């Protein structure tokens, strides 16, 4: 899932050099709209509805990985 997120960040926001500890806001400068847009992309990609109560507390790529994997499994591409 990390590779999926990396690919998306590069494609959507031309961001590279990220890892599990990378913070969306502090390290990448993404705002809440940017993050929500990412969430929507994943919802569309995996045909799932993400829980706002859960994703509103996500700050890092690692936390997003963990949440997405809990929904779609670790093998999703």
């Amino acid at each position, binding site marked *: 899932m990390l590779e999926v997120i990396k690919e998306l960040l590069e494609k959507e926001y031309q961001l590279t050099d990220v890892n599990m500890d990378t913070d969306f806001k502090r390290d990448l400068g993404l705002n809440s*709209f940017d993050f929500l*847009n*990412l969430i*929507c*992309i994943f*919802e*569309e990609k995996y045909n799932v509805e993400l829980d706002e109560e859960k994703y509103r507390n996500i700050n890092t790529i690692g936390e997003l990985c963990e949440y997405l994997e809990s929904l779609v499994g670790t093998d999703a591409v």
Partner: protein
Amino acid sequence: MQFRIAGEKKDEKSFLSFRKKKYKDDAKYVDNNYFMLQEIFAGKLHFVKSVEIIPAMVVAEESDVLAHARTGDILCEAIIAYAPLLPEYIQICFFESLEGCEKAVELLMDQAGRIGKEHGCSRIVIGLFGHVNYGLGFLNSHYDSVNSFSSLGNPAYYNAYFENLGCEKTKLNTYFTHDLNNRLSRYPALIAKLRKNYDFKPFDKRQFEYYSHIYTDLNNACFTEHKYYYHREYEDDYEMLKELFLFMKEDSLFFAFKGTEPVGFIMWYPDYNGYKTFL
């Protein structure tokens, strides 16, 4: 100097004239509140039925030595307001003052405090315009820019007056400017989801009451935790929107519905202050 309540028509006229004269030749400020003050004095607004309005001024006396004021001139003024639904606070609203009138402002504040105590208030709030839906706060930067429509405009010395009197500053709003053209294209997935899950409708003047009630209900639901917000009646926003829609277009107020339930709104408008002669 003397504290005076503007109880008579001639005092109300003086109150209005003071701010008109103050900003007459000021290229950097448009007085968007003048019209509202006229309506307050005329008792036309529903809001004044629920809020006690005390127009007050501090005037120069013969003993005052002021380079820029003669005996009887207004040094500073404000509407002192008490809203029973915001019982903790006595409000100093629509404050205006000449420069270098620290003592006059102090007198105004002392008298507002006295009136507040008579009403059982424990705090004074300065810069709330009777209700947050009408306006809130003092300008805290960009003093040399022309104020945009509905936004604040005051010289820096207003803030200094109250800071020097030991008032606590509360930062409530920050304004950003955005490049709208680039912004939406950045979020195609988010926009697609919003379009799928929500309906967006502009205000419809043919159903004025219906939509203005939605506006009030949403405000009352969203701002219950706001420090200075208090419950609005339908009539308060109805008349406010009636005035705004004299020149505002319907698509300046958009509502979001999830099914049939209104869940949010956004109000926007061009900077009408750019058309100074209009006002």
